[in-house]
């Protein structure tokens, strides 16, 4: 009598179907979320400031319109930097950090006490942007150094 034939080996399982017990690594952002947060804060803050001003002066007051244009314009700059930062975070973060610091220093020229208003949030934003900037640069350079040299 013949021996029991060995059962055929199962077909190889594609690697995409392999079951892994390891948790997938958390998807890391590239830091541009900080710029989006700045854009939203600036936009909402600008509208609130304009609303507060027009409660005391007419809506067509040049000073109020100037404040609205400046704050909404700044929000538009940050929004544009966020869109840019989704693909290229390093230059966008560098620009956003410098824009943020510049406008707050300029604000302090006209109203020195404005530096103290929301100081904690300003510190958090500056530290966050600086850290994100460093990480974005390191990630960019590591990617460039790991890439095969162009012949």
């Amino acid at each position: 009598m013949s021996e029991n034939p060995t059962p055929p080996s199962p077909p190889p399982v594609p690697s995409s179907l392999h079951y892994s017990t390891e948790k997938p690594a958390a998807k890391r952002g590239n830091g541009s979320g900080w710029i989006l947060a700045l854009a939203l804060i600036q936009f909402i803050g600008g509208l609130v400031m304009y609303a507060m001003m027009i409660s005391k002066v007419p809506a067509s007051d040049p000073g109020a319109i100037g404040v609205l244009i400046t704050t909404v314009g700044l929000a538009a700059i940050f929004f544009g930097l966020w869109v840019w930062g989704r693909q290229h975070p390093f230059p966008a973060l560098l620009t956003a950090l410098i824009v943020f610091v510049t406008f707050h220093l300029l604000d302090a020229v006209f109203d020195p006490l404005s530096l103290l208003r929301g100081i904690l949030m300003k510190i958090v934003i500056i530290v966050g942007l600086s850290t994100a900037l460093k990480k974005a640069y390191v990630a960019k350079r590591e990617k460039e150094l790991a890439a095969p040299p162009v012949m």
Partner: protein
Amino acid sequence: MSESEMSVPPRERVDGTPTTRPEPAGEPTAIPMPVAHTTDPVMDERAQIEREFRDVQRVCFFYVAMLLPVLVGTAWQFHTKSDDFVHEFYTGAALYGVIVAFALAWRREWVDLLRRPDALSRGLTGFLLATPVCTVALAHGLGEWGEAIGLPVADLLEGFGEGGYPLWLLFVWTGLLPPLFEEIAFRGLLLRKLQRLMKPVHAIWVSSLLFGLIHFSVLSMAVFLVPLAVIAGYITRRTGSLVPAIWLHAAHNFGVLILALSADRAA
């Protein structure tokens, strides 16, 4: 097999290739030579990246150093309600001093840009002639619109006429010196530093945004400052010379000045 036989490795492998001769049991083994120290490539790479990142800090430091005299001058003008040319003179002198100091410290980075450009193509020449016309028109239009809706518009001639200063001083101070020093600062120093850190296109955009930012006007930034700076940056990179960018900027400033003087005389 006895224990002593087991401790001695075989002199031949199964396939017949000889192994190293085993040391006889009982004799002391030689002290191994210390392994030569090999650099860790990962640590070297990280150290290199850290060194490169210092250029980012230098860029920020340079920008803040330029910003400080402008902020101090603005504060002085605002809080003393002074519209005299003197405060502009001191502000400008301080700013140009900062630019000269950094230009000397970083001269190897940018000094090769101080050369005549190679022969410009017709397209590029046309571009150089048309751009100031467009930017002057945009600046003038923005000023007219701002005045019409009552926005505070910067007066180029503010405090100048009352002081009895000669007209040539106005042209030199507003039309000639700012283009020279600002182009050295932004298209010379800043653009060169940024090009070490990012792609040239990104470096041009970042230096242009910072150029617009230091003028402290969001609308002007959007309408003509950033476009002028982007074009100047592109031309600097294309020609390898600062001269066309200085010409572009000077032509823009002269055009705006002439229009302001004409409007002032008409009024």
